[in-house]
Structures are given as C-alpha cells and as structure tokens.
C-alpha cells in the first residue's frame, strides 16, 4: 500500500492534463482597497471555482459557454460579474448588507444561514487539517459551541466521545448521527472485551474519515435542525460534506498534496518521587516494582537489583524511566488528491495515508483512504453524483486499560529504581519469558512484544444520487448510500504470560452494514414579490444489520499458533441483529421579503423495533428566522450591521434496539464469577440455556423528545464583531429504558417507557476581528457552551438508574432530581465539621454510606480560538477549557497507594498521623485525631479500604492549549516562477500544554469506557495521552 501511494504521488506530478479553456485573472478588493484573501470565485452554473491569493489575486479557467463569475466573501455582498468580453477584472466587494453564508443542513440541503431558525455551526475543511488530528472528530475540539469532545486515551486510533448540547438520554442515545455526503454512517464503538476489564479502544466508526477529504462539517445541534433526520439525530448530527472536483486556476486538473510529519510523546508525566526505593515498610524488595515504599535511596548497595538480580548500588531513574519506556511516536500523514471539473463533469480522487507508531512499544496504525467523488451533468435536467470511499485500517499493539488483564501497563507500573532498559531482552531462545521482576509478574516488553492486539478493518462508504429537474423550480433527487464495515480483531496472550500462563486468544469478527435510501422532491414558488414558498417531501428507507462471530480459545499447546485446534478449550460466539426504519417527511419554508422565514417540518417513521401497533409515529417542528435589521431597514451605518432572531420548537420520536419485545431463552456460553473467573459451557458436556433478565414490555411506545430553542445572531461594526447566542431546552420523555426492578421478582429489569430528562443550556460565540489591515489580520473567537442535564423523574420509587458500572464500587448513575452522577463510598465524616472520622484502633479513616459525589458532566466548556495573519504567515491557536464534572482516577489511586509520587514523601519515616481526621468520643463529641497509623505506607494504602472511592474523586476541570499551527504561504511572486499554484509550509502542534488541572499526575480527560458507553467520569490505568509536534507542507498545482 505504501508503494502504491508513492507511485500515485509520482504519477500526480506527471499529471497536468491540458484543456483548452479561457483564463480570466483579476483581483478582489474591499471598499478600502485592501486585498481580500480567500474570497470565492466561481463560474456560475458550474463547479469550477478558486479562491483568491494573499494579494487578492485569482486566476480561473472559464469553460466555453460560461461567462458569469460569482465572487463571494463572508461579510460582503456577493457579486456577479460578466466576463464574456474581459479576461482581466478588478472587483471591489461591498461590505455586506447580505450575509450570504450558505450552510449545509439536514439531508445535505444547502440553505442561507440567515433563513435558519436554529443554531448551526459549520467548520471548513481547512480548519480540520490545520493541525491535523488522526481523528477528525478531535479537530473540532474547542472550535464549536455546544459540542464537547473527550479523547479517551493515548492509544493510536482511540475513540473520542462526542456530546452535542449535553446528555439528554437515559437509554444511551447520546451520540450524534454522522452523515457523510447525505448518507448516515455508523460511529459505533464496539468493544471486544469488557469495557472495564482489559478494555482495548479500537476507535469508533466516524474516526476513519480522512480530514483532507472534508469540504465542511456542519454541526446540527437542536432537534429543529435535525428534525428531518428523525430519531437517530435526536442527539444532534454531524453533517460531513466531502470535497468535489474543481479545476486549477488555469483550468487544468488540480493536484494537491498535503503532508505532515509528527512526533508524539507523553502529554503528562506523573510527579514521581525519587527519594525512596521499591519495597515495603522501608525494607528494600527487588520484586516490588511499582511499589516504592522501600528505604531511602542513597545509592546503597543491595544484594539483588530489580529484574537482573545482580548485586549493585541503587540508582535513581528520572521520571521512573517512563520517558524511556514509552517511545516517541511518529506519524506521517500524507494526502494526495487530483481533481478537475467543468460544466459537464467534476471528479476528485484522493488517496490518504496515515502511518503511525505509538508511544507504547509495538503499537502501530496504518490507515489508507481512497476516495472518489464525481458528478456528471447529463443534461440541464439530469445530474448524477457518486462517491465511494474505501478505508483500510490496520493496527497493532493497542494498549489495554481497566483491570484484571495482564496486558495493562499504566503509569503506576514503574519504580524510581528501575531503568526500563533492564527489561530487554524479554524472551530467551526457547521462547520463555525472561527479565521479569518476579516469576509471577510480566516483563512489560514481553507484554508489548509477544501479546498481540491486532485489528484489520475494511470500510466502504458509497453513495449515489440522481437529480432530475423537470422544471426550473421542481427537482427530484434519489440517493442511495451504503456503509459497510468489516472488522477483524485478534487478541492474544502468549503462553508463559503470567496470569494467562497457558496462553489464550480471542478472534472477533464483525460486519456492520447500513443501507440508506432517500427520495426527495423539492419545489419552490414565488407567491408574490414579497412572499415565497419552498416545499420538500421525501421518503427514507434505512436498514442496519450487525453480524458478529468469534472465538475465545484457552490453553494453547504450540505457543504462537492461534488455531482452534491448538487450544484445549474453545468457546465460539455469534450474534446477529437487523432493524429497518421507513420514514416519510416534508418541510415547508415560507419566506417573507427575504427577512422572515418560517419553516415547518413533519416526519412519520415506521420502525421494525417497536410493537406493530406503535411502530408508526409522527413528529413535527417549526422554526422561524427574522432578520430584523433588514425588516427595520437598518443600513448598517450604526454599530449594528446585522441582526437575526430565531426560535424553534421540535419534537422527535425515537425507537429502540432490535429484539427487545419478546421473552426468550438464551443459549449461554459462560457462567460468570467474581474477578472474571468465569466457566464455560458446554460444562461437563452439558449445554445451557437461561431466560433473559429483562421482562419484555407490554405496549412499548416510541420515545419522544421535545426541544425549544431561541437565539440571536448579531454583527456589529461592519461585521468586525459577531455574537451568536442560543438558549435551549430539551425534554426527553417516555424514555425506553430497561428499568431496574426488584431482582426478587426473578428479573433484573423491565423494558418500559419511563422517566424524563431535561437538558437546559445556553451557548454563545463571540467572533471578533480586532485588526484587519492589508498585512495583519487578527481574528479571535470565544465559544461557550453550557448544558445542564437534569433527571426530572424516574419510575415511582426509583431513585437512581445505573448508566455504567466500574470497579471499586463506583457507578455512573442517573439520579432522580439530579443529574448523571458518580456513586461511591465516601469517608465517614463528622456531620458538623465535615472531617473524616478515624478508626481509633488503627488510625485509618472509616467508610460512610454509599452516596453520589456530583455530576460527571462538565458545568461548561469554552473554546478560545485565535488566528493571526501577518503577511504570508498565519498563526492559529486553540485553547480548550472544561469546567467542572468529576472523575475517579484509579491511576492516581495506584500512584499514591504505591508510594510512587511526591505527596507520599510526607512523614515517610516513622508513624503517620492523619491530621485531617477526628475521633468519635462516643458521647456525640469529637476530638482531633490522635491515633497515628504505623506508617505513611499504611495511610496511603488505607484510603481505599472498604472500597472507599472518595480519595480519588477529583474535579475534572482543565484548561488545555489544544493546538497551535503556524503556516507560511509562499507569496504569489515566488509561486509564479514555479509550477505550483499554492505552496505553504507549517508547524503544527496538538495537545501542546495542560495549562490547568485539578487531577494530579494524569490527563484529566482520560476515560475508561471509550466512546461507546455513557460511562463518563471514570479513569483506570488508561494509556497515557500524547502531545504532538509536527511539520506540514501542502502544495497545489
């Protein structure tokens, strides 16, 4: 594949097909005569277009038969210029009465932003590739209001959890719908193991998109925005439009190359202590790696150094050697695209390659994207488009997190006295593990090099559409889309791995398929000079199919042979589900005098997953946009340049998963036990069946979400300052939930319609251009998002519902009258002083009654985006601030409990008095704690006694310098002497710095559950996240 890619780039340089077309050149200026950089120049009625250079110049090949250029620029009036008799023009755009911004809305319909009655954010593809993330979703971080994106780990290709306007659903429908070129695509994150025990994050479905292929991403936030998509977009939608073919300035085929090379290293290094060696109770123990409660390290001689067992002097290893153990990751991100277009056809072929090695030894990821996007204008009445993307992802060495898996390597796995170099080599000639700390622990290099975590994923996203325009204002479009994902995983433990001593492997293969068809008719009509109507009617068919097969094999004979016949015990598994949804929808836009638009929509769905009598459900929406500056005839001479008010109300219905309605017996392969100590069926040759644990529903209704939104777009001072504000509220009722019922009924849950979740919030964007001169432009944007999720009611008598369960007695629960909160065991506290009560027998803190500790969701998020252009240099920086929410960190628990970090240096010698504590005098009074623990080791080790979680629950607030990009664009004066039409080089950095955090030692963004579950707020042995620094070169010719 790499060779093919190189070949394509080579061929690209050779390709510069010549077409005889007329070239028009010119300059675009503002009224002050300053050059407008990046203005759009388009040949009317075609897809031929270009953008202006840094000096405002452009050059465009105008196909024969075309004569009108359309020049547009945000904040300026669009102009049409007849060039039939001219080949050189200078155009001055007037600063905008009309904000002609076109955005992509539901079903891929482009609308003028001013006509929308709901909030929408659109991000240009350039923004996504400026400081490239390997996951396109991450590139939105900090840039869009109402959207929170959480990186879950530092694994290559790891998933990111995306929430639009907060969490609104108890039933897990909190993930937005991803739509690419009008076709829904799956963003599923499917776990091969338990999400908490040895979880491997192999990424989520949408992360395969090549950022270089993206023309724009629209974030549809409210239900009114997504009403035509229906249920699946109840949590918002991300509408991705891929790039289409355009010709170069000279009218020839356009080739563009974008290459980044990037180094990744650890983003956060724990504040390790170096003063005390490994061991326990101040006694050195060569086997106690990752447990630094030994003696003070003064370079003393010991009879056995760790791992080697040789006598020698203890050394202090900086940062416990993790900077040596974790490698410098390397990423090469290359994209090559060729495109062309004229009035008859357009196409773009793109080849992307992402080749990465991770910070974990042995981790790598290779992704290749091949895409074609093409369109043909068959006649004035008939157009067709088709697109196909083939994406191949191969990854190796994905790290495990959670617990109960020998492959977990966390920041607490290292001691201050062990140089990781001693682990090499990890295997002898006979294939035995060597250089492990003890016979019962694993050499981390063995884990990384001998145990496999492989994924081989093939994805096809294809779409085709036909548009038939029999009349000028009447059009019919039929779209068919297909999303196919074939995912193959192999997870192995080599024989000789401690804790999996006999070796095992797991094969997990699945196909995830989605077929989507839309047929849409549109008609628009001017009823009078002032009043127009646009109508849309459509029909949707959507089918999703999931098929999975796999095998778990234990106890291998031949170490590296992963065949079922080589295992003493094999358990196959198989799963299948399918669901179908039909939808009929329509919308009417009424526009009065171009400043008042009222949009009414309705959709009826028929779902296969609901009972036959309730499977049909209808939901409406209404939204309105009022450009009051136009209505009042404000000419922009005052401070207010533009003002729009908007309001919307929408309802959305939602179905449930397949196969929820019947009572069944399930064939069982596993009898579960504590600590994952399961046994398998057939057991003693016997098969096993069990009833399901959920009582099926009697008369299940569709879920219903109601949402309200009001907002305003205001621009001041000739569009130099913009404010966009939204207030929203959603009420999610009739949630379809497996409601916990008393297990004493014989069942654990009852599937039913229950509860209500209200999410209220507001968001605003302030966009300012404080400086705009010929050589210097400074644009700054602040976006602020707040969403409060409130569980208004659960079922009668039910106080809380489990959303996700983790280890150590912490659960993420929805609390009636509260939010999504972390439940765990606190310290027992004196109710008056609030101080922890100490056990008078041993000086440890006592455990209190299980309680919730607060919301796991942020209070607000804020992004601060700055772009400065100084002549040919542009500098961009994004700061990302998350305020509030809590996280329970088991990594911190391990670092502190094992004496690895600096706070454990206090009172290392002698006894340890917990001065925060009080002792119950037994008469209702308390005294300051006077019972010391025997050692600081005992203190730090006792904080989680009796599963107490409180000591490791932190405020998850953070401020990160998310990205910096510096780009130098070669001036046209130099470019003109080359065959390039554009050439720029840049420096890019992501996750540059953690500016503020209340969680010690780790990245506060880490999450155990990955993107596939609503498990926020829990971290356990996560793969450390990375900081990236890279260079970028991009060229167009």
């Amino acid at each position, binding site marked *: 594949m790499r060779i093919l890619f190189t070949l394509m780039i080579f061929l690209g340089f050779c390709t510069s097909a010549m077409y005889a077309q007329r070239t028009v050149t010119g300059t675009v200026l503002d009224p002050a005569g300053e050059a407008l950089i990046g203005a759009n120049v388009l040949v009317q009625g075609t897809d031929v277009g270009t953008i202006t250079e840094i000096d405002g110049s452009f050059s465009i090949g105008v196909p024969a038969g075309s004569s009108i250029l359309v020049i547009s620029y945000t904040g300026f009036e669009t102009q049409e210029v007849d060039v039939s008799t001219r080949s050189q023009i200078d155009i001055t755009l007037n600063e905008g009465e009309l904000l002609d911004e076109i955005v992509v809305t539901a079903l891929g319909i482009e609308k003028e932003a001013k006509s929308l009655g709901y909030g929408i954010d659109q991000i240009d593809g350039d923004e996504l590739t400026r400081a490239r993330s390997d996951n396109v979703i991450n590139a939105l971080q900090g840039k869009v209001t109402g959207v929170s994106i959480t990186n879950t780990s530092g694994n290559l290709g790891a998933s990111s959890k995306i929430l639009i306007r907060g969490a609104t659903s108890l039933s897990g429908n909190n993930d937005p719908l991803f739509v690419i070129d009008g076709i829904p695509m799956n963003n599923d994150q499917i776990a091969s193991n338990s999400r908490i025990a040895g979880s491997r994050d192999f990424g989520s479905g949408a992360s395969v998109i090549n950022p270089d292929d993206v023309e724009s991403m629209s974030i549809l936030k409210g239900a009114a925005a997504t009403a035509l998509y229906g249920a699946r977009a109840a949590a918002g939608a991300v509408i991705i439009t891929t790039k289409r073919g355009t010709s170069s300035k000279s009218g020839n085929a356009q080739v563009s190359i974008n290459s980044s090379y990037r180094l990744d290293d650890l983003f956060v290094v724990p504040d390790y202590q170096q003063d005390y060696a490994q061991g326990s109770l101040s006694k050195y123990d060569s086997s106690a790696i990752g447990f630094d409660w030994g003696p003070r390290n003064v370079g003393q001689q010991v009879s056995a150094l760790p791992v080697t067992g040789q006598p020698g002097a203890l050394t202090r290893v900086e940062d416990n050697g993790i900077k040596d153990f974790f490698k410098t990751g390397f990423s090469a991100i290359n994209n090559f695209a060729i495109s062309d277009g004229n009035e008859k056809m357009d196409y773009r072929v793109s080849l992307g390659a992402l080749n990465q090695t991770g910070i974990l030894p042995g981790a790598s990821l290779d992704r290749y994207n091949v895409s074609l996007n093409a369109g043909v204008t068959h006649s004035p009445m008939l157009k067709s488009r088709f697109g196909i993307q083939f994406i191949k992802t191969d990854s190796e060495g994905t790290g495990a997190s959670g617990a109960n898996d020998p492959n977990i390597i966390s920041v607490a796995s290292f001691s201050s006295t062990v140089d990781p170099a001693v682990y090499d080599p990890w295997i002898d000639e006979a294939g035995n593990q060597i250089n492990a700390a003890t016979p019962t622990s694993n050499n981390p290099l063995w884990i990384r090099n001998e145990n496999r975590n492989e994924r081989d994923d093939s994805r096809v996203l294809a779409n085709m559409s036909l548009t038939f325009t029999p009349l000028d204002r009447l059009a019919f479009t039929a779209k068919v889309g297909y999303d196919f994902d074939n995912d193959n995983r192999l997870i192995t433990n080599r024989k000789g791995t401690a804790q999996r001593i006999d070796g095992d492997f797991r094969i997990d293969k699945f196909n995830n398929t989605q077929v989507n068809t839309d047929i849409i008719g549109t008609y628009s009509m001017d009823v009078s000079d002032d009043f127009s109507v646009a109508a849309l009617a459509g029909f949707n068919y959507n089918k999703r199919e999931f098929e999975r097969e796999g095998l778990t094999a234990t106890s291998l004979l031949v170490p590296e042979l992963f065949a079922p016949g080589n295992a*003493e015990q094999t358990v196959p598994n198989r799963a299948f589900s399918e669901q179908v949804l039909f939808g009929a929808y329509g919308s009417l836009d009424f526009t009065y005098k171009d400043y008042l638009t009222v949009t009414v929509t309705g959709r009826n769905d028929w779902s296969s997953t609901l009972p036959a009598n309730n499977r049909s459900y209808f939901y409406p929406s209404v939204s309105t946009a009022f450009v009051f500056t136009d209505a009042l005839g404000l000419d922009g001479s005052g401070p207010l340049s533009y003002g729009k008010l908007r309001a919307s109300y929408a309802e959305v219905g939602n179905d449930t998963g397949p196969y929820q309605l*019947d009572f069944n017996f399930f064939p069982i392969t596993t009898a579960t036990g504590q600590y994952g100590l399961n046994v398998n069926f057939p057991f003693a040759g016997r098969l096993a069946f069990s009833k399901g644990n959920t009582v099926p529903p009697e008369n299940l209704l569709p879920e219903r979400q109601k949402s309200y939104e009001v907002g305003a777009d205001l621009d001041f001072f000739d569009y130099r300052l913009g404010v966009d504000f939204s207030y929203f509220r959603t009420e999610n009722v009739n949630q379809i939930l497996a409601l916990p019922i008393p297990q004493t009924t*014989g069942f654990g849950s009852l599937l039913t319609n229950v509860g209500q979740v209200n999410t209220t919030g507001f968001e605003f964007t302030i966009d300012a251009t404080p400086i705009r001169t010929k050589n210097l432009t400074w644009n700054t944007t602040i976006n602020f998002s707040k969403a409060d999720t409130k569980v208004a009611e659960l079922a009668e008598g039910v106080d809380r519902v489990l959303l996700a369960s983790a280890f150590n007695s912490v659960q993420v629960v929805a609390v009636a009258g509260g939010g999504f909160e972390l439940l765990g065991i606190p310290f027992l506290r004196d109710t008056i002083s609030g101080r922890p009560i100490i056990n008078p027998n041993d000086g440890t803190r006592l*455990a209190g009654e299980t309680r919730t500790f607060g919301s796991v969701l942020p209070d607000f998020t804020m992004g601060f985006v700055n772009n400065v252009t100084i002549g040919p240099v542009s500098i961009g920086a994004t700061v990302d601030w998350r305020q509030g929410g809590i996280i329970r960190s088991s990594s911190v628990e391990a670092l502190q409990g094992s004496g690895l970090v600096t706070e454990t240096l206090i009172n290392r010698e002698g006894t340890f008095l917990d001065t925060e504590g009080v002792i119950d005098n037994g008469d209702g009074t308390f005294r300051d704690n006077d019972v010391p623990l025997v050692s600081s080791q005992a203190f730090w080790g006792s904080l989680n006694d009796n599963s107490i979680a409180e000591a490791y629950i932190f405020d998850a607030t953070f401020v990160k310098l998310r990205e910096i990009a510096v780009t130098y664009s070669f001036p046209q004066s130099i470019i003109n002497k080359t065959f390039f039409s554009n050439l720029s080089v840049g420096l890019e950095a992501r996750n540059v710095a953690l500016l503020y955090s209340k969680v010690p030692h780790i990245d506060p963004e880490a999450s155990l559950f990955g993107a596939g579950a609503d498990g926020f707020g829990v971290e356990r042995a996560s793969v450390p996240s990375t900081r990236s620094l890279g260079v970028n070169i991009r060229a167009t010719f």
Partner: protein
Amino acid sequence: MNFTKIFALSLLMLFTVSSCDEALDINTNPLVASAADPNVVLPFVFVQYSNRHVTELGTRMMDVPQHFSACFNSPRGGNTSSFLTGNTWNMFYTQVLGNLVLVEEDAIEAGASSNNINAIAKVLKALSFFELSSIWESVPFTEALDGATFPSPQFDDQETVFRGSVALLDEAMALIDAIPDASVNVSSGDLIYGGDMSLWRRYANSLKIRILMMIRNRDTSVDSQLSAAFSQPVIDDNTQAALVRYFDTPAESNAYNRLVEAFFGIGNETQGVYAPGEPLYDLLSEAEDPRLATLTVDPDGNGSPGNGTFLPFGAGAGAVISENVIRNDVPHILMLPSEISFYRAELTLQGVLSGDAQSAFDTGMAQILSFWGGQIPGARVGISTGAIDAFIGGLPSLASLGQANALTTVHEQLYLESFLRPIVAWNTVRRTKVPALDPPPGTTISTILKRFNYPPNEVASNPNTPANDPTDTPMWFEN
C-alpha cells in the same frame, strides 16, 4: 429522453422495497429460543450457582468463619460491598430462582411425568431461599418471583423463610415418592446426581435437617420434625455427597485455583494466596488431626498468619491451604454425610433422638476424615483407614467429657466439617458459637460479621426493603 427513463426506472426500483409491513416484521432474534428443555436450563442453574458461590462467597468470605486467614475484598471487617451483596443477590434471585420457577411451572404443567424435575426445582429453591436468609435474614419469599402480582415483594422474616423452605422440601420429597414409571429423563440436566431421584430424596431430607437445626436453635418445637426426618433416608455415605464437580480443564475448573493462577501464578502452595485461619489450624494441629496434612501445608511449622492477615511474600512464611484443596478439579461441596452424622450426635446428646451419640459422632468423624483422606473426587493426599481408625480411637469418648464439653466437641467437629462451605460454616459458628471467634483486627463492628447489608439495587428498586441493621446484629436464629 434516455436519462428520464433511467431515472424513472431507478425510482421504481427504490419503491419496490416490498411492502412496508412485511419489511418491518423482522424483529425476531434468530439466535434465541422461545422455550427451553429443563435438561439445558438446569445445567445453567447448577453451574451459575456454583461458580458465583465459589468466586463470590468462597474466595471472598472464607475468612468470616475464619477457615481462611484473610480473603481479598472480604466483608470480615463489617463492610459488605455493593458488589459482593449485589452479585450474590442477583445470582440467587434472577439467575437461579428466576430460572427454577420457570422450570417448576413447566413441570407442573407437564404433570406427574415431570415430578422429578419439579422436585429438583423445589429442592434447589429451598436451598437458595435458606441460603439467602442465612446471609440477609429477612428476604422476599412468599411474594418473591411473581413480579406480575407482586412488583415490589414484601420481605419475610427468617422464621417464615426457613419454615417455608422446609415445606418446599417436604413437597419435593412427596413428589419424588409419587414419580411414575414413565418419567422425563433428567440425567443430563442434573449435574449433582445424574437424575438419581433416590439420592435427591436423601439430599432433600438432609437439607431439611440442616434447616431444622437452625430453627431449633430458636424453637425446639421442631424436634419432632427432626426425629421424623432422621427416620427417613439421609445422605449417609460420601458416595451420596451433594457435589458439583469441576474438572482439570481450563474453563471448567474450580475458581479457588483459577484465582491463584489468574492473578498470582501456579499453585497456592507456592503463591500462598489462601492461608488457614487460626481457629481451624489450631483445632486440627492441637488434636494432631490427620486432616491437617490434607488441608494445609506448613513446611516450617509457622502456623496460620493470624486473623485477618495475609501471608507475607515468600515460601515458608506460614501455613497455606494445600493444593489437595486448591486445585482445578476440587468439587463445590453442597453437603457431606458427616454434617448429618454430627447433627445426629448433637441431637442424641440432647435427648432429641434416641440411640448412641458416640456412634453417630464416630461415624461423622470417619466420614469426614475419609472424605478429605481420599474419597473427595481427585484427592491428591490420602489418609489410610488405619490412621483414621487410630485417630478416632484415640479421641476421648463423649461420655468422658460430660454433656457440655461433649456438645462443644461435636460443634467443633461441625465447624471443621464445614470447611470450604462458607455459608454452612458461617451458620455453624453463628448457631453454636463454637469456636468462639474474635473479630479480626481493624474491624468496624463488635463481633464477627453477622449479616450482609441489602444490595443497593434492591434498596433502590424495592420500597419494601427493610432498613439495614448494623452488620454485627445477630439474626433471629441466633437465640
């Protein structure tokens, strides 16, 4: 207009997605069954009950009756975590009882030919409710397992649950006595006795005696029931022991050993994960009981690491539970004949039963010594018959001890006999107070653990759940 034709054709094709309703009628899972034979449901019940029992109660709370010195995530200090309580409760009510009640309903519907299945379901129900009440005291019984009628089941007091369990066992025995010649074959589904209903009858009657002994601690009016039960067949030979067998294959092995291997390495004797509790170790070693060598290994004679204490790292640090016990194929023991023999000795000493207490006691001793000394399936260490006879012969006679000491001796043997059965052992020490157990160091309660707290899920979903008593509050049966 060629293209118009193509377009029209395309539209037509899109609309020929059969009829809507037909396309929507696909909501039936092809990989599940709407009904299941008891011969496949019962194996799930047996194995799930056993594996959860071993991993949750066994590996976590053998230190409560102090048979082990310390267990991971143990409730010995008075705090019963939500996972321990939740997993155990869930296993009993939804996985075991929830399936058993369906098996029972099907068997009732099928009539007398399914009496055997009906009886097995009832015996296992009785066992489950008895154990649930032994752990939590008041638990739903009369209103349990019928969510349609009782969405929030009331909790019944312990006496009701215990007596109700006895009644279930009586029903089961009556059903067994009425099994017709043409019966459903349950040999495959019955993982304990392979469908031998005469052994189920012995087990049911023996289980009834175990429960009546608990009730008797509070109410001696059950003495006549006990007398009657002892006149019926009981488990009286190790070949009749109620066992769930495990195997030396990777995914069919007993979890005590899998825990050691999964988290530490090969062999408890090397890893020292489980060490004997002091009372157990001391009783055996002071009596020079030959069982000591079958249950423990202690090369350097350092003894138990002490109450609530794990062994320090390193070989020879102290006594460990032997690999004769902690091995892949050690069975999960539900009941041994020795327990019934010792009850017989106890009741004879107290004049409830007529006969010879010494003989019953000696029988019990011989049964338990020969069980650990070779009759347990897969035994690795043996005790010769001669050694067993010599040991029993060397014990002072009960008569020579006087009534009180004789009773204590029987209770001590009941305590030792209950090894590897955490609920039975816990019941025994709470019922007899023999041996007197000190609370472990660092405990938050005044005695050894006496009960579990109710699991948070039940508390949250069932308003009838009683408030939790402190976990050192004795239960009804404890006088």
